Structures are given as C-alpha cells and as structure tokens.
C-alpha cells in the first residue's frame, strides 16, 4: 500500500516540479492549475521517462524509474528557476467578487462534498476490482503484463508479422500499434508493488480523474469565472456517468485522451484571451501529449490548427483561411492514397459514404441516454441563449469554438460516413469517443454560461 502511495505521489510531484515554473504569471486558479496540470504531466511524463530508460537498455525497475524521475524533477525545478515564464501583454481576467453569504458557502461546500464522495467511491472501486473491461484485457494490459515481466518494452507486432518471425523476440495482441502511455503507467505501479496486481495498477485512472477536475476548476477561475460557477461546472463534469465508469472500470485510454485534449483546449482559450506565455506552453505540451495516448489524438491535435488561425488572424482573413483549409482537407481526402495508413486508419478501410441509420442513435446517445446526464441539453440551451437571447456571437471564444466545431465535424464524419458507423448504431464506440471531447465541450459551455450570468451582474 505504501509503495503505491509513493509511486502516485512521485508521479504527482514530478509533474508539479515541471509545471510550477510555468505558471508564475497566473493569478487566479493557480493552485488548482498546478495540481491538475502537474498531476497529468506526471501521468504523461513518467511513461516518457520509462521509454527513455528502455532506449538506454536500463531495466524498468522501480528503483531506476524513481531515481530518473527524481533527477529529472530536480532538473525541472532548476530550469524553472533560470527560465522564468512571465509577462502578459493583456491584463489577466479577473473573476467577479463572490458573495460570501452562508447559503453560498454551504452550496459550494455541498458541491465539493459531492465531488469528493464521487472520487472516494471510484477510488475504492478501482482498488478492489480486478481488470474487467473488454479492450483493457485485449490490447492495453496485455503489453503491461509482458513488459512488467520482462522489465523492458518488448516489441508487439501484428499477428502476421508474429507468425513470420515465429514469435521470436516479439509478442502480439489485437492492437500492437496503439500508443503505450497507459500500459506503461500500469507497469510503473506494478513495479512499485513488486508484483502483478491488476487492481492497484489502475489507480492512475483515479489520479487522472482528479487531475481533470483540478485543472478544469483552475482554468475556469483563470477564465474569469466566479468560484461558485467554476465549482458548479466542475461538479457537472466530474459527475458524468460515463466519465465515472471509465474510472471505475479502468483500463481504457479514452479518459486520458479526453483529459489531455481538455487541458490543451482550456489553456489555448485562456492564452487566446490573455496571451500569457505559460498558457501557450501548457496548450502546446498537452496538445502534443494527445499523440502519446491514442491514435485519435492525432485528429484532435489537428483541430487546434484552424483554431490557431482564427485567433491570430483578423476576422476576414481567418474566414478565408478556414475556407481554404476546408478545400485543402477535401482535396486531400479525394487524392490521398487509399491504402496509406494514418493514425491507424486507411481510406480503403473506412469505406466512405453517408449512413443515414446512424443519425438517430447519435441523437439518442447525447439527448436520451444517461451517459452525460443533462450536458447535451445544457450545451444546446446555452448556444441558443447566446445567439437568440444575448444576440451575441462567439467571437470572444472563436478559438475554442473553432476547435470544437472542427472536432465535432470529424466526429460526425467518423460515425456517419465510415465503417465506424457500427459503433454508433450498436452504441459500442460513439459514447466512448465522445468522452474524448465532452470535457473540452463542458469548458466551452462554462464560458457561455459565464457570459450569460455576466448580464445578471450588470443588471445588479
């Protein structure tokens, strides 16, 4: 038990050591941002260290990983002291002064208590339940099991390659080409324990959940939200059933990808408003981290490109650029070699045409079923209120709006126009892939709610 705590704390401390120097210029929400981004940085960083150790032929033992982590954490602190990230051309957003009535404080504490209860329950579930979900035992933890035993990242190859190689020096499973961050996290925890424990090895999923909540709250405060509004939306996010299920039935990488994309997009938005260098660095680091988690991370990373265009360019030029980008994307789709694999997929395999039978299940997965509680109606209501009631546009949020709109188009393309429509019709994939985008979309809805409530304060 102690060793698990040591491993988890070291993961957190490593990340915090690298994040703290980046956040010196942040005024609001800094503690939560450091905690959330630091925690997640550790969850990404420790597997990177393990890969580097493996490249150097060093066995993946707990002692070696620990020494390397401590050394690089100290390096991070030292570098941070030398290269301070500061200076912000625009004034930071100031959250409104909060009412400190007793009811207000009680409501705040109640929401916090609900969140902490949720975290505790999920922690207990993960600590006791042996590895359960289908894909987790099919192609994620298979690697962890072999690498923990070998103390090295032994290659995994396709079935055909394994047969040709007579299995010599290679292993195989159903998806040998998947990114290896989450399996390495499981190896890390088992290395700390000294034996294979497919319950405790999933505790990083709880850490990821906590990181997401802390980072979300911190960035909400940095975006100028009151502590109450930030807490309400953090509660909304952390109470979503499918997000909770991916913690409780740990072993899939979707939660990690959703967290990484959300962290990147939140930092991107706050950079677009304040031009704080620290937010730019956070956005870049966690956008790139998406590539280390799942193949879909490549496509979510791409959504930041049009977002960047609309943020840095004047309005008219950015519209023209977006149109050009859409044309380029369309031409690429038309002329790209059909058998070339990009991020795990080829055009041949996708079999592109519109499948009308997927529209209704898509609607059901957001508006009828309970995976996201009332999030979809909330988002629609906020968009409608912004457009029709406030008669405002999304210009202040053009970056995050563009990124999410692009992501939504890609999402619909995947499920309405490709063979992955099966995952929508039979509900086997559409909600899981939504998990990769919903946290970021929750931040977007928070921004819209903040603007709407700002009208109240002006009236007051």
């Amino acid at each position, binding site marked *: 038990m102690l060793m698990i705590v040591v491993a988890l704390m070291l993961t957190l401390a490593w990340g915090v050591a690298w994040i703290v120097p980046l956040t010196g210029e942040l005024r609001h929400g800094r503690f939560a941002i450091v905690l959330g981004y630091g925690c997640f940085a550790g969850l990404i960083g420790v597997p990177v260290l393990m890969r580097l150790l493996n490249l150097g032929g060093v066995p993946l033992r707990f002692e070696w990983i620990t020494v390397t982590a401590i050394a690089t954490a100290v390096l991070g602190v030292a570098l941070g002291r030398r290269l301070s990230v500061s200076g912000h051309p625009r004034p930071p957003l100031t959250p409104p002064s909060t009412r400190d009535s007793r*009811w207000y404080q009680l409501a705040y504490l109640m929401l916090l208590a*609900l969140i902490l*209860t949720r975290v505790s*329950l*999920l922690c*207990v*579930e993960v600590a*006791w*339940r*042996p590895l*359960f*979900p*289908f894909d987790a*035992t*099919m192609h994620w933890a*298979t690697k962890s*099991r*072999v690498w*923990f035993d*070998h103390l090295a990242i032994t290659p995994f190859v396709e079935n055909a390659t*394994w*047969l040709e190689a*007579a*299995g010599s020096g290679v*292993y195989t*499973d*159903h998806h040998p080409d998947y990114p290896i961050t989450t399996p390495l996290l499981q190896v890390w925890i088992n290395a700390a324990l000294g034996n*294979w*424990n*497919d*319950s405790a090895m999933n505790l990083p999923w709880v850490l990821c959940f906590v990181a997401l909540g802390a980072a979300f709250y911190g960035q909400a405060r940095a975006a100028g939200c009151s502590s109450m509004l930030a807490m309400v939306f953090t509660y909304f996010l952390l*109470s979503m*059933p*499918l997000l*909770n*299920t991916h913690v*409780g*039935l740990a072993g*899939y990488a979707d939660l990690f990808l959703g967290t990484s994309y959300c962290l990147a997009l939140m930092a991107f938005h706050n950079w677009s408003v304040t031009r704080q260098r620290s937010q730019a660095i956070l956005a870049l680091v966690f956008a790139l981290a998406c590539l280390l988690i799942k193949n879909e991370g490549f496509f979510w990373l791409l959504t930041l490109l049009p977002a960047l265009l609309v943020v840095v360019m004047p309005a008219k030029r950015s519209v023209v650029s977006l149109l050009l980008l859409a044309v380029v994307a369309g031409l690429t789709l038309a002329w790209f070699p059909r058998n070339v694999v990009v991020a795990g997929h080829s055009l041949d395999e996708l079999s592109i045409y519109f499948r009308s039978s997927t529209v209704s299940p898509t609607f059901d997965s957001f508006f*009828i*079923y*309970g*995976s996201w*509680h*009332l999030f979809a*109606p909330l988002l629609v*209501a906020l968009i409608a*209120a912004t457009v029709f009631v406030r008669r405002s546009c999304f210009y202040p949020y053009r970056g995050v709006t563009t990124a999410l709109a692009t992501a939504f188009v890609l999402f619909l393309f995947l499920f309405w126009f490709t063979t992955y429509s099966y995952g929508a019709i039979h*509900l*086997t*994939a*559409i*909600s*899981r892939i939504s998990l990769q985008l919903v946290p970021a979309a929750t931040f977007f809805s928070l921004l819209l*709610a903040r603007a*709407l*409530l700002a*009208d*109240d304060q002006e*009236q007051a």
Partner: protein
Amino acid sequence: MLRTALICLAIAIALLLSGYAILGQKSAGEPATTAKTWTNRDMDVLVGLPVNARGVAAVRLDQSGRGVVEVATRNIALADLPYLQLRFRGRPDVLAMIVGWRTEASGRTIRNHRVGLSPGRELWLDMGDVRHWQGQATSLAVVFLGPPGGRVDLETISLRPRTIASSLRVQLDDWLTFVPWRQSSINAYIGVTAPGKTAYPVVVLTLLFIIASMVYLTSTRLGRGRSGIRWSVVGVIFTLCWIAVDGLWQYRLTQQVTLTAETFAGKNREEKLLATNDDYLFRFAQDVRQAIHTKDARIFINTTDDYLGMRSAYYLYPMNVFWERHARALPASKFFQRGDYIVLLNPALASLNSETGELTYGTGQILKVRAISSTNVGALLEVI
C-alpha cells in the same frame, strides 16, 4: 434565488404530473381492475428447499441455483393487470428471474419471460407488452436463479392494474433498480433497465427544466418585464435538475461499490479472479501454465467465442500467446513448430483424432499433436 427556483420546480412537477395524469386517463379507458395480492400462505415452493420463516415464503436455491414459487390464480385477466410486483424481506440472493404463467388458452404450456435483474427489496415489472401476457391465468410462478444455497424470502406477489400511481411506481422502480456493471457498461450508460418501456431520466429532467424555466421566465416577464429576468435563477433550476438525475447515478454507484467490496475486498489477485464469472477460465489458464514447462513456448489459442479467446489469452500472458480476434481457425500448419502448444477452448472448430494424434482444422490443415489435458472448458495440446 434558491426559493424562486424551488417554487418554479414545484410548479413544473405539478404541471408534469397533471399532464401525465390527464394523458394516462385518456389512454386507460375502462375503470381499472382491482389489484390481486398473494401472501406467503398462498405460495407453494416447487423447487428449492423451503425454510421455516414467519410471514414469508422462504426458499433456499437448490444445487443448480434454482428456486420456484407458484401461486394459483382464478378469474384473473392478465391484460387488465399488467404490473407484477414482488416484495421481499431483505435483498434476495438472486441474479435473475423467470416469470412463468399458464392460461386457459395455453393449457399445459407454460409461457415465460426472463428478467435479467438482481432485485432489491421490491421489484415492479411491466408485463403489459410481454408476449402471451393475456387471457385468463390459471397459474403464476416465479423462478429465482442465483448461487446454490442462496436465500429468497418472498413476502407477497401482486398483480396490479395500470393506474397513474402504479405507472409512476413502475417508473421509479426501474430508475432505482440496480444492475451491476457489465462489459457493455464501458460503452454507454442508458439510465433505465427496460429501454423503450420506461421514460428516461434525462428526458424527464430535461422536460422538468424546460417547464420550470418557462414558468420563471413567463412569470418574471409578465411581472417585471424582460429586464427582471435573472439567468442565475435558471442556472439554479438547471443545477437542481442535474443534482436530481445525478442522485440516481450516485445511488447506483454506491450499490456497485458495495457489491464490489462484498465480492473482492480482502482477497489477493487469484482469489479475486476466482470470485468472478471468469473463475473457470482463470482456473483453466492456471492449469495450462503449470503444464507448460518451456520458458519461451508459443501458445496458440483457438475458439469461436471472442470473449473466451481474448480473456484466456490475457490470463496466459506473459507467455508468448497468439490469439486472433474473429478468426475461426488456427493459422496454417506451416507456421507451427515442434514444441508449440495449442489451447482449444469450447466451442472450437478443430477436431482431434486421438488414435492418430492428428488435429484437423480449417481447409484441410493437419497437425500432429499430443493431448496433454482436456476438460469441459477446453484442451491443451502440444505439437510434435
């Protein structure tokens, strides 16, 4: 702000219930039939061991994990009594149930409907759309399926007509019925146990939010004009609706964690896996590991059941395992070497001739093998 929100929500709930009552009365048609209830005195234990207990029909499930309780029925038109209510003393040790019934028209043929739920202290089932739930019932039985020796204390069996109150009760019972996590849980959370038969909590709470918001916006606009509208009140209404729908999820999660604790707490890895539904598979994999002494042996798994193949492969790692999803046959014989092992899990599309030691599979593929072990789960073979 909170008071205003609560008032609007209360009005919305009243409007929603009134609308439901009006719609319910229009569709109900004829006045409802009286409910029929059977107590323990009316129940016969047909299968399982009856246990002496006051006020309940208590039964221990037999060695095959079955228990059956029957009641005699007279002059009961099933179509008029679509709701089946079971009340237990304590939580029954049951994983699933089958409702069985005979009618005058069916004669000796037993109609049945499987209910894949583990009930709480009370269970409401809407049998209205179930096939053959019509005609004059002559007998009604409930089959309980669970662990051998599991106990069921049944207080009452009731058949109830479709009324507003009973409809709401069925609705609420469905929302509160606990279903443990399954493989499909990682893909989506539906929110109800009977999709298509009961209203979804998200839909109901969304409707509630819309009505409550309309009440607030309309009353404020009429009273103070547009400038009097405070969006924070709408926000509070929404938050309360969210907390309500989250309350249902929190309730399920608490039950799930309780079940997980009861099943796994204090156990080591092996004991945990033996406490799951994979216990037989894990045991088989352990036996395979012990039978294979070669360190870098290659192990080929074949079965037509993807779940069994995938799971057994996982239990056999870190051995060098080959399993191909959706593949119905082993790879071509040219890929095999002496000293390779083959695990055939039932059902598998391969046949072994024990006299000649030949394993035949696919399109005319033949391997010379030695059988090492064989159980009803599968067989372990060595290529020679």
